[in-house]
């Protein structure tokens, strides 16, 4: 099984999580930990960059569901970006685009955060 890695970056008040590899039932707890940490640090503006994400299972999708409510309650958001077609298909099949903002580029997501902040 391919590795799963999480990198954190912080830019302009927005916290970015880079995902890499397989996100499935085995690796989902790692992502949960990452979200949990951000929430305890009161960082609610989050972009998940899926550029290097090769696979996501239902357990992986569940992680986003688990935290979105808390994040939005605190006037933040989890935005997704840079998905491969295959990964997007999984999100799309389940109807995630109706619930999450999914951008082709991280920059767009960042811009969106800034405009919200400005308004």
């Amino acid at each position, binding site marked *: 099984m*391919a590795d799963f890695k999480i990198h954190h970056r912080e830019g302009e008040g927005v916290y970015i999580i880079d995902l890499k590899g397989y996100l499935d*039932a085995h690796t989902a707890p790692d992502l949960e*930990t990452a979200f949990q*940490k951000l929430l305890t640090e009161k960082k609610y503006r989050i972009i998940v960059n899926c550029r290097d994400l090769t696979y996501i299972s*239902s*357990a992986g*999708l*569940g*992680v986003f*569901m*688990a935290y979105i*409510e808390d994040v939005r309650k605190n006037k933040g958001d989890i935005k997704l970006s840079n998905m491969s077609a*295959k990964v997007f298909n999984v999100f799309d*099949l*389940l*109807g*995630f685009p*109706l*619930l999450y903002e999914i951008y082709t580029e991280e920059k767009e997501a960042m811009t969106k955060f800034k405009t919200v902040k400005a308004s």
Partner: protein
Amino acid sequence: MSRFKKIILVVLPPILFLLVFAYDIIRATVNLEIGWLDFAREAFIIVAFVLIYLFLESSRGNVKQAATRDVGRLLIVCAVVLSIVALIGFVGPGTSNQDEEQTSYSAMNIFLSMILGLCLGWVSLRSLLTIKDLVLFKRKKGTKRNLTVYLILLFCSVVPMLPFFSLETSLLGTLFFGFTVAAIVANSFRQSWIVYLSRKQKIYVIVYSALLFTGFVLLNVLFFEKTFTNKALLAFSQPLHRFTQLNAIFGAVYFGMAFVSTLFHLPTAEVFERKQFEITSLHNLSRLVTQVFDFNDLVNTVTQMTLEVCGAKSTWLELVKVDKENLTSFEIVSAKNVTRDRIEQINGGDQSLLRNLVIESKKYLLIEDVSADRRTKHVVAEKLLKGSLLSIPLISHGSLIGILHATKEFEYGFDQDDIDVLTTFADNVTIAIENSKLIARSIERERLQQEMMVAQAMQRRLLPEALPTSDKLDIVAVSESSAEVGGDYYDFIQLPDDKVGVVVGDVSGKGVSAAFYMAEMKGIFLSLSAICASPKDLLIRANEALMGSLEKKAFISLIYAIIDTRVGTVHIARAGHCPLVYLSGNEVELVRPTGLGLGLTNGEVFVQATEERLIKLREGDVCIFYTDGITESRNANGDEFGSERLVTVAQRSKDRTAEEIKNEVLQEVRKYVGSPVIGDDMTLVVIKWLGKKGVRV
């Protein structure tokens, strides 16, 4: 011992003594010259004392376990007897200024001499019993023989004192007296019982034996000729006089020796005790091993044993705890004679000064004098602790799993022996704790396996046992699950007006929770399918029902179709599930009405998103429902089977029966994966529309 015997032992001696007393009174007033009566009198006394001896012996406990206590009791007896003797000496008539002949003839004197005889006989027998047990405490060759020799000599020197023997014989008795004293000395070297006493007991024994020695010496002094006691006793019974005298000598010599011997043993008492303790500790270690099933019991035993092993004042055990975020912290799992708050302060609060010293060195930390050591400055200021402190790390496979601490009240309290014993002890504790953890883990695994089996059985029961029967439909369904419990679910329902409901879904996650949600889904499906005429309606209501009960991160994807076999239509709605592969003529379509997974969001968004499609079936049309286990099957390169391959194989075999189509698809997947074992659950439902005539192809 039987009740009858006991009654005899208690009742008979007093009767015999009463008879003797009566005889003495008569003899004092009337001058009797009947020899056999004297003989009978002595015999009565002897029998009475034998009975007393038997009584005393029967009422004794096991001396091996309580030698000190037995010696203590003997001391009490001795003291009581001495005071009685002294009292009699005080109230009794003086010897020097009274006519000697008169002494033995007054009734009062007869009574007093009898009491004296009784008391002295009692103490003699009692001391003989104690000494016998002490001598035989640890038997060696000759131990018993020597004692037997003494008893025989005692007998030989006592018997000639009987009144009807001649003076010559009684001289022989005096000769034996000398031999007996020699036997006493020989027996008095048997002091091995002292070795096994604890230091505390030895101190008691020193006091007891010194007092007993004094007591017996005093008794011996009484036997000097001029005393009233001596005379009274001689008058009462000469054999008893001899017997008592010899035993008093034995008592004095034996306890004198015991005193000296214990005194010499005292300096080594602690060493002996420690050795003994090490042995007990070894035994206790096996106790540790058996206690690994209960962690709390185990750690409490550890601290308790630490107290015992080195005589510490307080002790506590802290173990390394790793939390979810891989941060390590220490948890005090057991403490004796010290509060947890105090431990934290002793450790140095948040900085954990002492703890860090042990963590860094991974060696034991010994602070000989807490008040003078710079490492424990913080402790002194708060007056938390005085004396010495020893902290021993518990190291398993090179990593620290905990620290065992012990304190003593006085400075330089821990010597090298303590450290050695505790270090060895700590090693064993480490093993016991590790074992305990392993066992807990394997029990947990066992439990999970059990749970999994229950879940698997539950899952199998949730899938339909029979397929719906319709001569217009050719239906097959298969659901294969991987080793674990998966979340795939399919079901059929026969609806009114010749309609058939088909549902295929996937519950996120695996294991028990998946099986549980699946059961919930089935319940919801069965109840809603009866009242919801359209698939869209059912999905919306199912979502409402599930929103409240699903975990945040759990959701269910579902596809639901109602096939109207009278008119040949399919109404289909999708809640985030894989699309339907619809094959009609040479056309193929992935039917994918929009829709959100169940349990993701409630209310309007879901309602808005859910779409319903209508398909008009033509003869020979094939509908394939599947779960992502099919399309996400991977080959050795990690590439997915994908929906394109599924479509291709479906197209290729669409003119065959549903069963054959299913087999083709599964075979293709297996061929692609390259192994008969599938990694995930897969579910496949193939429905072929046979047309209104219902002719099988």
